[in-house]
């Protein structure tokens, strides 16, 4: 894992001042290379969860299919689009900040947070509807997986709000902005998106 941290030209430890974006090396890891340990590690952990889920799914495919029919594919799709769009704005925020357009970057960060909140609201609505319809964490095996996977993902999303907060703090302080920290936090936010894409296709789409 250390290899990743040492790969490529190391960006300055404390981050570079805003004007320096043009001197950015042609090939650089966005943000701290260290964040990629988290990205790849969490991807593996989720792969383990999802692999266990898929394995057990084939044992009770009838039950899983019947329960799956109670999920709304529209809500799932909406969730995915919300997070994909939030990722788009996060990328724009990073690019604006790199170009020195901090006001623009700030508004992109706020839009990202707004879309994240919309995802949160949509998720909670979906949970509420399911619980109202009589499906809880312990109802059956499918819903155990469903609530477990969406729940642990939501926890990652909540941490994502903290990272957006860090980005906004970085953009606000004029004298010691760190593009590196902005990019590190952005990488985390995209990870939340990435994990949801996997969860979405495995909970809502597979048959």
């Amino acid at each position, binding site marked *: 894992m250390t290899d990743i941290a040492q790969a490529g030209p190391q960006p300055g430890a404390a981050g570079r001042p805003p004007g320096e974006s043009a001197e950015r090396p042609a090939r650089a890891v*966005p943000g701290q290379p260290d964040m*990629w340990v988290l990205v790849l590690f969490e*991807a593996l952990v989720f*792969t383990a969860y999802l692999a266990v889920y*898929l*394995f057990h799914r084939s044992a009770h495919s009838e039950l899983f299919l019947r329960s799956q029919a109670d999920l709304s*594919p529209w809500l799932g799709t909406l969730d995915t689009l919300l997070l994909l769009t939030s990722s788009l704005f996060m990328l724009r925020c990073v690019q604006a900040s790199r170009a020195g357009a901090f006001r623009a970057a700030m508004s992109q960060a706020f839009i990202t947070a707004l879309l994240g909140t919309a995802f949160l609201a949509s998720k909670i609505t979906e949970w509420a509807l399911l619980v109202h319809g009589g499906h809880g964490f312990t109802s059956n095996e499918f819903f155990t997986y469903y609530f477990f996977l969406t729940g642990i993902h939501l926890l990652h999303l909540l941490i994502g709000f903290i990272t957006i907060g860090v980005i906004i703090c970085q953009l606000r302080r004029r004298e010691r902005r760190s593009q590196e920290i902005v990019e590190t936090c952005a990488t985390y936010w995209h990870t939340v998106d990435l994990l949801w894409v996997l969860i979405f296709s495995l909970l809502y*789409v597979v048959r």
Partner: protein
Amino acid sequence: MNARPKSRPLITWLILSAITLAYLALDRSVDNHGTYRASSVVTTIAILLALVKARYIFREFMQVRNAPALLRRLTDLWVLLIGAALLGSYFTGLAIH
């Protein structure tokens, strides 16, 4: 890096959204008037599409496209690893049960 066309993120987003919407059509293809039916084909396609999306997110949103070769290869390896684990556990489960 700055030479990148401004529309590139938007195109990425459009492709990812299109794949997401394609899922809805994929669902309909095997379901029998609202009754879900098991289908290895749909499952496999769903997993593969998820991997395509994951790689897109890595390359474009997370900007691995411009990262050193090591990280590019590592993320590609990860996509393959995730795919192998998911498909492997699915088909192993099918074979056993």
